[in-house]
């Protein structure tokens, strides 16, 4: 038993696949974190990721460069965000309804278009980071990845800086905590909330594009497969802090990697437990952490000026 765990934990491939999935979660969850700090419980993450993935194959097909794939992927995520933000924070439609409808729309649309067009493989080059890649056991995972993965490293401090060290970030946090007060002090509440959703769209677009360019290599309509919702769970896991969110992403990435690694190493655990594991872990973790941390005060509450 312990020997088995030891073999598992000492295999480089476990860490690589954990890292790959964590990167996807970091892209999705860090953007989601910004939106939630601004007061939107954005559930269209799944759709944004899928749009990003689809954008990546389209972009790659168009110019045959992984950079273009990434850029079009980000645009794909952003376009979902624009629809979501304007419907829910300009036209006051219910954010959950909009998010859910967009998830269905993107899933149907990408599957439909994918069936109608032929896309070739789209992969990004693996870039070896000097030094980092030489670390034993973890080096392969951290420093020898397809290059879009490395965007996740600067993304985290960049978002931290934007949210905690800029005027814009202060305003974003204030509309998530007390929109009435923010409104009175001259902040356009719904504009900040829309912008926060655009950030989610961009990072999720990158995440989806990474999933294609750095992991799968083609588009499949099941490529995201509910992982966007795990990213939302990661934000709650992190107690609406960026640090905690990133830790949550790593935990969930690791759990999902284990569900792949265990059968690959011929250890038999009932596939039910393996398939359900990420979600059960997410549930337990949310259960353990939800009461202890404080959510943004106005999370998921729409704001209309003059109405309280």
């Amino acid at each position, binding site marked *: 038993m312990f020997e088995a765990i030891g073999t598992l934990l000492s295999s480089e491939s476990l860490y690589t696949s954990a890292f790959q999935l964590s990167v996807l979660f970091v892209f999705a969850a860090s953007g989601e974190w910004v939106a939630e700090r601004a007061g939107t*419980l954005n*559930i269209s993450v799944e759709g944004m990721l899928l749009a990003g993935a689809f954008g990546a194959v389209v972009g790659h097909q168009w110019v045959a460069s992984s950079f273009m794939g990434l850029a079009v992927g980000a645009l794909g995520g952003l376009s979902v965000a624009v*629809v979501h933000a304007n*419907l829910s924070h300009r*036209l*006051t*439609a*219910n954010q*959950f*309804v*909009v998010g*859910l*409808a*967009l998830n*269905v*729309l993107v*899933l*149907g*649309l990408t*599957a*439909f*278009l994918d*069936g*109608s*067009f032929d896309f070739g493989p789209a992969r990004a080059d693996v870039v070896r980071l000097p030094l980092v890649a030489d670390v034993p056991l973890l080096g392969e995972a951290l420093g020898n990845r397809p290059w879009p993965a490395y965007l996740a490293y600067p993304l985290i401090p960049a978002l931290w800086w934007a949210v905690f060290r800029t005027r814009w970030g202060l305003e974003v946090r204030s509309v998530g905590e007390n929109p009435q007060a923010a409104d009175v002090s001259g902040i356009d509440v719904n504009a900040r909330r829309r912008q926060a959703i655009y950030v989610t769209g961009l990072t999720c677009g990158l995440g989806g594009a990474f999933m294609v360019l750095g992991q799968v290599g083609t588009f499949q309509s099941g490529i995201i497969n*509910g992982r966007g*919702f795990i990213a*939302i*769970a990661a934000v*709650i896991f992190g107690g609406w802090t960026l640090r905690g969110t990133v830790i949550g992403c790593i935990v969930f990435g690791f759990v999902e990697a284990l569900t792949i690694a265990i059968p690959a190493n011929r250890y038999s655990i*009932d*596939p*039910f*437990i*393996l*398939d*359900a594991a990420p*979600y*059960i872990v*997410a*549930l337990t973790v*949310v*259960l353990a952490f*939800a*009461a202890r941390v404080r959510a943004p005060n106005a999370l*998921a509450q729409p704001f*209309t000026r*003059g109405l309280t």
Partner: protein
Amino acid sequence: MSKGENRKSLVARFATRDTGVAIGLYVLSLSAAIFVSALLVAATGGSATAVFDALLDGSLRSQGAWGLTLTTSAPLLLVAVGTIVATRAGLVNIGQEGQLLIGTCVAAYFAVRVGGPGWFVIAVALLAGAAGGGAWAGIAAGLRAWRNVPEVLTTLLLTFVAFPLMTFGLRQSWLLKDRDTERMNQLNSGERLPANANLPDLMIFGNSIDSGFFVAIGLAFVLTVMVGRTVLGSRIDMLGFNPRAAQRFGVSAGPLSAAVLIGSGATAGVAGAVLLTGGAASDRLVFGFSGNFGWDGLLVALLARNRVMLAIPMAFVFAMLRTGSSFLAATGVDRKMTDVVQALLVLALLLPPALLFIRDRRRSLAPSNLAVSSAPIAVEVS
């Protein structure tokens, strides 16, 4: 006030310019959605009119089609009515797919084991479905009550647990797996329901309508009365509008919202049981049984904008897209197209009320309407 005046005022209330604008907006946004769908079909080399024809043939025009469509609308409606009540209570339950699946599993477990006359087996199956779906939603309700975990997330995550759980059950003969050793292909398939455990069909003009449809319609009427005419209904509404105020008025927010969430899971479970005993899909539980009825039922509920009665036509439209899509293959257009149409319809129906709300607000904030309140300020300035 005389009766005539009353009627006049009623007409006057509905025949205003505002109603015209509202209807116009709905027509406009719906045709925009249909236009975009047609554009998509055309852009991918299909013929939009052929697709439209095929959808109508499959859902209404061909032999026995509209009966099938009505039958298909039953589970959608069942899922939707429960969701609507939950939404009215301010709950966001988006895990109907999982609740439906677990409800079906529990219903199947009991249906193949109880024995007895057909009506008894059916009743047990429906009740077991309700219990299963309710219990699955009950986990989310419990977590919400106990640790204040948002039910948006838990209901959804539980859906992803429900799928592997069903697969697990289908591999264990003490749970759901077919115990009939004679049968060759037992993998991922449940035991055949007893022959008498089939919901009776009603034949009208060569259309067979499953009695599950009448169960759904009946439940819709009961819930309409419950929501609009009873103390419980107004308590639920109060809870949805302002939980804190509701608590002040003596509504026990925690237990009531838990009960409503469990109830909405139960209707999803009944939908699963109706699917199972209706026999339209299969006479046994099979892998991938739920066929997205939970998700689509949720969309129906969202479209009905919290009105139980509106869910009936919405469920019918969605059922039309479902039964119609089986005729799409002949046109060479992917069935996924119907998902796109559904989502576009949802988005299109979101727009008009939002636009009207904004217009009303602008109007009430316009200077002419604020004259009374701005007068004292003007005095102060002078």
